[in-house]
């Protein structure tokens, strides 16, 4: 800042930044405060006298208890975690293999295949959910976790492949050639030389894939039907609303607890997540 008077810095930088952070985080604050607020305080009209919306002096765990006692929330958490973890692992394996082949091996149509995978990366779930629901039913996979474990990779693999291709291309060819001269096969060179170097990329792709699976909604909504099979986003949507009645306390408790696993994974690997995110758009 050459021309930097202090007030300028506040007006042009600090205050706008504070406003951004406030708006971006407020809904999460609202989630937390609603979770611990008793029903009597929750359902007071917005123009009621002496209404203190931003704080409560009578925090309660009722909504959290309701979630675990009256609904299958625990099951939903386990389901989501299992589905996200398995589909992430499948996608990582496929993505690493395909990314390596496309980045490093000579074979006909390599360029065309790369483009096809990139295009499938851009196919939204909402384009195919109706015919896919029929297919899932014909394969006898309806209402089982496998309906999601096998379909989530369709949007995770292209992303993983794309990201891994970038990583593999950045690793010098000489590294692999040395191993090859020492007598290692192509496969061994990949597993023992290239993969260890690409660990940061694999981590980025994995974390990104995990958060995407946790977030997925429409497939889970359409392919699963019994309450015990549901994932968190679908369970919260369908079991905590009865007709027009929203159970806001448990709903917000569910939203809060359902966000925690993703938030934890994210907080441990922020840097990897960011490089996965920016890698996904830089290609």
């Amino acid at each position, binding site marked *: 800042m050459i021309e930097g008077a202090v007030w300028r810095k506040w007006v042009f*930088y600090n205050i706008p*930044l504070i406003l*951004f*952070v406030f*708006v*971006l*985080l407020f*809904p*999460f604050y*609202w989630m937390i405060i*609603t979770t611990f607020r008793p029903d009597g305080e929750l359902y007071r009209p*917005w*123009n009621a006298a002496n*209404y203190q*919306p931003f704080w409560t002096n009578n925090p309660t765990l009722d909504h959290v208890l309701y979630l675990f006692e009256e609904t299958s929330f625990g099951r939903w958490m386990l389901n989501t975690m299992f589905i996200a973890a398995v589909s992430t692992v499948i996608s990582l394996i*496929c993505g690493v*293999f*395909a990314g390596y*082949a496309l980045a490093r091996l*000579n*074979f006909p149509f390599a360029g065309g*295949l790369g483009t096809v*995978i990139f295009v*499938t990366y*851009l*196919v*939204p*779930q*909402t*384009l*195919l*959910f*109706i*015919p*896919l629901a029929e*297919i899932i039913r014909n394969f006898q996979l309806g209402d089982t976790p496998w309906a999601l474990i096998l379909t989530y*990779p*369709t949007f995770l*693999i292209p992303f993983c492949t794309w990201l891994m291709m970038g990583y593999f291309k950045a690793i010098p060819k000489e590294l692999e050639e040395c191993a090859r001269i020492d007598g290692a096969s*192509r496969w061994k060179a990949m597993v023992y030389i290239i993969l260890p170097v690409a660990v940061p990329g694999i981590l980025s792709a994995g974390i990104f894939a995990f958060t995407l699976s946790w*977030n997925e*909604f*429409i497939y889970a909504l*359409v392919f699963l039907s019994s309450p015990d099979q549901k994932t968190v*986003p*679908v369970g*919260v949507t369908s079991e905590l609303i009865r007709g027009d009645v*929203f159970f*806001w306390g448990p709903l*917000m408790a*569910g*939203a809060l607890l359902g*966000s925690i696993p*993703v938030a934890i994974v994210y907080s441990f690997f*922020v840097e990897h*997540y*960011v490089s996965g995110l*920016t890698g996904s*758009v*830089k290609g």
Partner: protein
Amino acid sequence: MEDERWLAFALLVPTAVLLGLFIAYPFIEGVLLSLNSTRVGVKGDFVGLKNFDKIWNDSIFRTSVWNTFWYTGVTTVFKLALGLWLAMLLNRHFKGKALVRAFILLPFIIPTVLSTFAWKWMFDPTFSVINWTLFQLGFITQRINWLGDPDLAMTSIIIVNVWRGVPFFAISLLAGLQTISPELQEAAAIDGARPWQRFWHVTWPLLLPVTMVVVLFSVIQTFADFQLVYVMTGGGPANATHLFATYAYQLGIGTGLLSEGAAVSLAMFPFLFLIVVVQLLYIRRVETR
């Protein structure tokens, strides 16, 4: 080189099988379904383009098309403008920068359905905290029925989408900004360029490739969006806020008209295809430059 071919083939098989079974196959099935008259439990007959003809004359479908374009256009402009602004605010050294950056991404990583419920609760007709705040500040005397009025409902949905998308734009553009050498800025400043000129003639052209990709990604995601509208309004009030995807869901899954639902979904395809072609051409042009 013969062994490489076999290895490449073996490495690509798992990906090809999964993408073939769950993308290519359903796509073909979807096209067939849309040319059919299938309902839940009733195997249909071939009807040609009748479903498309029917939805073309369906006023709810037309509203959904208009909504989808309006929703995509407005949110993209706001996400880009606010995201760029936020990226520039973050592109300097200050205490706690890493922490701020980590927190800012939260709206993007927290499952959309869950954070959208928080917004729905904030927009609640009777217990809205936003109304409370506006009332306390003296801006309103009557309640605002955020999700009950068609236009306001669309605006509310747009607000939530922008809220969720700004972090993605900001962080991606920040990554782009960080690759621009500060020396270029300094050189322009020494030559007497004003801050606005420096942005327009130095930063913006260098940032354009990243911006293009981010915008195209976001346009596709927004165009095909489902969860946000499903949670906020379910397409209501009176079917006024449907997008392609939510209307397809209502027809196909809600009322069981599978073929018509598939037709509504597939109607997205030409637009998505166009966007993807633009993106591929653009990437190719950048790569060959």
